[in-house]
Each structure stands twice: as C-alpha cells, then as structure tokens.
C-alpha cells in the first residue's frame, strides 16, 4: 500500500492495530478527528454521541404532569360522574329539562377532560373520545333511564376510577351500543347518500 502524504509526514504506516482498537496514525489524530475509531477518552465521548444520533431517533420528552393538572383531572372526573348521576335521578323523576342541563354540563366536563388527555394514559383518552362521540349531536331530553344509567356506569367505573385498560374501553363501547348510543358515530357517514 502506498503511504499517503499525511502518513509520510509522521513517518509511520497509515493505520496500526493496538490492543484497544484501530488507530489512525495521522497528524489530525490529536485534533480528535471524528471519522476514526479512537481509544482516547475525549474522542470516545464524541463517538458515543455519533452513534446515538445515527442509530436511534431522538426520544420525545414527556413532561411529568403538574400537580394542578392532576387536580384538574380529578375534579372534572368527579364533576362528570356527579353530573351523570344527576342525569339518572332526573330521568327517574321525569325531569326532562334537568336531565338535559346535566347532559350539557357533562359534555363540558368531558371537553375539559379531553383537553387534559396528556396527563393520563392513551386508553383513558380513548374512552373520553368515545364518550364524547357517542353523546355528541344527541338530544339529552330524549335520553332514556337506561341510557343515563349506562353513561353513569362508564364514567363511575372506568373514567373516574383507576388505570383504564384496552378491554375496559371495549366494554364501555359495548355498553354504549347496547343502549342505542353509537360510539363510532364520529367515523360514520354524517348523511346518507340518496
């Protein structure tokens, strides 16, 4: 192999193998050239950084939820549960206007919970999403006792309870369907073709 100009300058072969790895015997070696695999500590730091950038995409930093956000989730979850409970009572008593008022208040609480979705797990956010879809464009005055009961069960048992699992989201969807509320309304055709 013909020695390069740089190798001639230092009077040694271009590369040599040591016990610690491959060495590039060039003038630029001491200037911590990033293209060669060097055993020095400083270059080693560069090397690690280099590999990290090449092999793995940067991780999204997830900020820990603030205390105020956690408080807000608890508050609006509790509000939603109470509003759903009052809907059940109103429907039992035949108080249609009260039922509609509580239904609208529930929608507002759900919207606040949706805004806070980053605080909780994806499944919980998904459940909020399904509930909002199922209740949107509905006239609460026409809700039956069974429908109010179903909404209350979902909020009390899943949304305002602990960690939400995938199978609980499925159960909630089934319950909504059972009482004639459509959880897939948001991805259904808004109007049918004539």
């Amino acid at each position: 192999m013909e020695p390069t100009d740089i190798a001639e300058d230092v009077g040694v072969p271009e590369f040599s193998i040591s016990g610690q790895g491959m060495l590039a015997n060039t003038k630029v070696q001491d200037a911590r050239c990033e293209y060669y695999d060097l055993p020095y500590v400083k270059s080693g730091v560069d090397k690690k950084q280099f590999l990290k950038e090449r092999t793995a995409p940067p991780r999204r930093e997830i900020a820990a939820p603030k205390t105020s956000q956690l408080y807000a989730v608890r508050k609006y979850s509790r509000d939603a549960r109470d509003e759903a409970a009052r809907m059940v009572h109103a429907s039992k008593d035949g108080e249609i206007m009260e039922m509609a008022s509580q239904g609208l208040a529930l929608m507002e609480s759900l919207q606040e919970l949706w805004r806070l979705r980053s605080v909780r797990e994806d499944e919980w956010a998904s459940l909020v999403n399904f509930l909002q879809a199922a209740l949107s464009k509905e006239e609460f005055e026409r809700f039956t006792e069974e429908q109010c009961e179903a909404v209350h069960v979902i909020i009390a048992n899943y949304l305002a309870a602990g960690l939400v699992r995938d199978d609980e989201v499925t159960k909630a969807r089934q319950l909504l369907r059972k009482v004639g509320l459509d959880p897939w309304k948001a991805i259904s055709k808004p109007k049918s073709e004539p």
Partner: protein
Amino acid sequence: MEGHIEAQERAVVPSGSAVFLDTTIQIGRFVHSPEMKQRIRQRIQTFDVSLTSLVVRQEFRRRLLKEADYLLRQLKRLGSYAKLRRHIGSVLTTWQRRKRNICVEILDTIFENDDDADLTERTKYFLRDLITGGLAEFDELVDRVIPDSGCACGRQDIREVKKYQKYHFGIAKCSQAESACRILDFLAKRKPQLRAISCLLKSLPAEQKTDELKAAEEFIEMFFKDPLAIRTRDPCYTVGDLLVALESADIPVFYTMNAKESEHLCRALHQQLIVRPRNPERPDIVHPPPAKGTVPTQTSTTSTNGASADNKVGASP
C-alpha cells in the same frame, strides 16, 4: 377474536327465527349513517337470533380494518387530520368511497369546535381502537359466527406490534394457510348447494351475470373437475360471495346491502332475501323465497358428475 369464536361455538345458540348478516351489513353497523344504523337495528330486532360467518369476518377484517390501518399509517406520515383529508380526497377515486367515508367530512361535523391537532388525535384514537377492538365487537354484535367453512383467514386475529404504527393482520389468503384452511372439506359437504347455484347461474342471461357471479360459476366448475386445485385460487379472497352464500345456506333469511349477487344466490338456495337500500329513507326490500319448481335444477355440470340423486336444491332452511 379466536378465543371468542371458540367460546361462541361451545355456547348454545338460542332458538327462534334467525337472520344471516352479510359483510355489507356488518360493516354498515360501524360506519354508516345513524339513520341507516337505526334501520338495520330495527330489522335485526325482528328476529330472535342473528348470525354471521367466518368468511364475513375475513371480509370485514380485509375491507374495513385494513382500511383503518391504511388511514392510521397515512395519518402518521402526514401528521395532520387536515392533510389526511386532502390526501384522501385527491388520491382515492370515487369507487373507493368506503375509505373516504371513514375520514372525510366526518370528524369535523361531530367535533366542530376542535382544531386540527385535536382532530388528528381523535382520529388516531378511533382508528387504533377500530383496528384492535373491531373484531371483538364484530363477534359481539351477533349471536354466533358460523364456523362451518373452517376458513383459517376468518379465524385470524389482529395483533398490535407497535402502538399506532404496526399491526399484524395474519394470513389473508387460503394458499398461505396450508392445512389450517378447511374450505375444501366444507365445499365437499355443500355439493348439493353448489350444484343448485351452478344450475341457476348457467340459466342466467349473460347480461345479468356480474363479474363475481362469473367467477363463482367458473370456480364451481373447477371444483367439480379438480377439487384439490381450488386452494390455489384463494376461495375466500376471490369468491367470497359464493362462500358466504354457502355458509348461510341453513339460515332461512339473508340480510344484505348488496342485491346484485345475493338475489341469484338466495334464489338458488331458497332463502328469503332482505335488501337494505343505500337510502335510509327507503324501507327494506323483502324478496320471499322462490316457489318450488321455479328454480332451474338440471345442467350439464351435474350430469358430468353423475350425481343426480343429490341434484335437487337441498339447502332448504
């Protein structure tokens, strides 16, 4: 879900009047308009039992859930619901309307006050839940998924490999299933019905035969000539309508939104056909089963096989 289907198989199916729901109805129960869903629900409620089948399950997975997967991938690539809408609107042609239905002009009519970031997030959640929970809900919506065809593709479950990114749909064609596919055995048991369908299709004028009916006719001929060769034809992928008709043969009523093929197949199998028009304002169209002697029963196909004894339409419900 495979476990759920097995549990259904062990469970006792309630007796009473039964209706078979085809792929169009099952998909419609997810993505059609509220009025249409209401119509379908009302019709099903008039029966004691609702059933569907493994091939319908396979078609549901292949059509609706694959599309949801496509949309989720596009959403990830484009990063915005508005961009996805534009993409779908410009790339997909009108006949791919079902894909567009899931996305275009839908979410923003429900959540009018949401911005694009919110709509993107909502779409992401909906699509993921549809992919991961759609089959379980499909099974829950009926009293039983008829397992008679032994369609291995229909038993496949969807596995989430990476959330919002990668989903494993399992095998989609009979030729990939090897010995797990039992469709050949099923067809062997359904020879009388196959002959009845073949007779009727041969008697139809050419202009009434759709591409699917022509494929079904050719498939039946091929089956009677060389049964082993049909697996390479991927039956549940290429002649789904025929297989669904055979799976439903023991059920007296067939409910569909696709009358083109079903009107002939139901006639051959002496079933009552109920067609749900695409316009929800129109009532269901009910075709009673044909009177005896009005359906052709003899063709050259049967005579070549020398099986005149089981040549009659024997699939009476």
